[in-house]
């Protein structure tokens, strides 16, 4: 019951924050909306016993990524509000139409289509997915070790890429 309550509250929170991201005119508010979503979702992780992931979400996302976003927003200028008018013809109509189609489709398969998110599901055993550090670390460093190593590559790329993009700045200025 508590879980249901949390789900509803946090779920609505996540949605509301997400909508904020989309509709806020000032990027700062969007960032705050994103923060709200991230935190709400982190709570939902905890509810689903993904403790470590939730922690990482808060630290990495809310802590690092969002800070980065804020930095850039500051750089660009906080005081600039975006205009609300759409200057691409039909864009809103197309997107609205697509949204309607997607929602209609989702509603359709949910109501009429016997839709099952997890058709292979078995009885849930909370112990199996109790996301403690140990439980997550073991597969990560055995079965997934190569993927873990690949993240190193990813970060190298990100670093080298950022440098490459910024490098020019030095020369040009």
């Amino acid at each position: 019951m508590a879980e249901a309550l949390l789900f509803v509250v946090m779920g609505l929170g996540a949605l509301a924050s997400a909508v904020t991201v989309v509709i806020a005119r000032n990027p700062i508010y969007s960032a705050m909306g994103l923060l709200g979503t991230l935190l709400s979702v982190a709570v939902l992780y905890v509810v689903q016993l993904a403790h470590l992931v939730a922690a990482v979400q808060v630290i990495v996302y809310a802590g690092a990524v969002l800070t980065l976003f804020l930095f850039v927003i500051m750089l660009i200028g906080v005081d600039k509000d975006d205009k609300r008018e759409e200057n691409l013809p039909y864009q809103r109509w197309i997107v609205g139409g697509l949204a309607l189609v997607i929602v209609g489709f989702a509603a359709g398969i949910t109501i009429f289509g016997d839709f099952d998110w997890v058709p292979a599901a078995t009885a849930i055993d909370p112990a199996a997915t109790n996301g403690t550090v140990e439980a997550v670390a073991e597969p990560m460093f055995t079965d997934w070790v190569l993927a873990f190593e690949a993240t190193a590559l990813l970060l190298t790329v990100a670093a080298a890429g950022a440098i490459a993009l910024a490098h020019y700045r030095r020369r040009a200025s």
Partner: protein
Amino acid sequence: MITPEISWLAILPEVLLAVGAAGVLLVEVQWKPEANVLGTIAAGSIVFAAAFSVLQWFQAGDSVELGTTGDLVVFSGLVLMDGLAIFGRFALLAVTGFGLMAAWKYIDSLGRRSAEAIALVLLATSGFSIMVAANNLVMMFLGLEVGSIALYVLAGMSRERARSDEAAIKYFLLGSFASAIFIYGVALLYAGTGEFEILGIRDFLAGFVVFSPAVILIGLGLVVVGLGFKVSAAPFHSWAPDVYQGAPAGLVGYMAAVAKIAGFVAITRILLAGVETLDADWLPIVAAIAALSMLVGSTLALVQDDVRRMLAYSGVAHAGFILTGVVGGTTEGVLFYLVVYSLQLVGAFAVAAAVSGAENAESSLESFRGLGRRSPFLAGSFTVLLLGMAGLPVTSGFIAKFGVFTQAWNSGFRWLVIVAVLASVIAFAFYLRIIVAMYMDESEAADLDVPATSRWVLIVAVGTTILWGILPGSLLSLAADALPL
């Protein structure tokens, strides 16, 4: 103690590439040498990576012969060392090597930033190399992202031009969007099957009857979209013309080719090795994408005035042709086409770069006028490559088209073959437009110099185009052996 399952040979090429990239960056920081030194390091890592790929090929061949194919599933099933992976990897390495050579003049001109460019190229290749070998879809996603992020940056490398920025941000935003769609698809596939591994999904589908497979199908659809974006199949192609035009001319050939190779190997692996049992569901859709790509690509290429845009749209059409091979259901034709086309693509952009100049000023059709006189070598090579892409007989392009058409016809998609042959007629028209400009229009412009590295790339590209057009057997039999597990 639990130990990870490690197979060094399987990832040695990627490791070498990463080491090469790191080496380039470090050497640059420490010694600030000439770009040629960095190039040598890169070349070394590519050559060694290729050498180990060859070793892998024989290893994999032995395993297939001995029936111990289980050995080829390595790193707990994260990656595979099957023929498809090794073939794709080798193709990537070849394209990387030639791509770097073709881009060398440009890279050289970057000065100190050349190290980053080379490193990014090597890293991108290692990422895509992981992608072609990946069995685990998350692993595939990682490889895809490593490669893609590197490409986003490369697209924006040429900071002297505002267009390069535009290309980079478009590529980045749309690419991230597509990646998100891809990984959401992976998540849904996971939800539907409980598996991240392609082979696992195959076993799952073979072993269970799923009563409401909608989630699997949606997941599959999203995965296909994500990969379709990478290979610039219509309607996910919109980025390609803008990026090809805006990105540095020298590098575009490489960027386009590796993305296509990796994307198509992944598509082939997922569709043909993973969800083959669902082919009744996906075949018509892939066929539709193929047809749309061919038509959109050819028709739009016809009306372009910029050679790079034209090549981009032709790339869309080629994506359609290769997808026709996927519909055909065997890897042979797809792989042959991929190799042939990527080499031609690298060569073609080498020409475009040589004509545009190092700083990619212009690649309008106008600037190709009279190339037949200004540089007979460039014009001649370009002509062969264009005719090869168009699929004129005696070039490898024809064999490639013929292969995928035959496969598609064999699997009953006759309408697709007919659309394909008609699209290839339209394609002739726009390739010929370039040839017309080169030979049949006159120009007062000065003669052009071709950098030695580009010259070699072109010799190889033209040579293989003709060689495999006449004696396709060597490559075809390799492609036929490059089967997924």
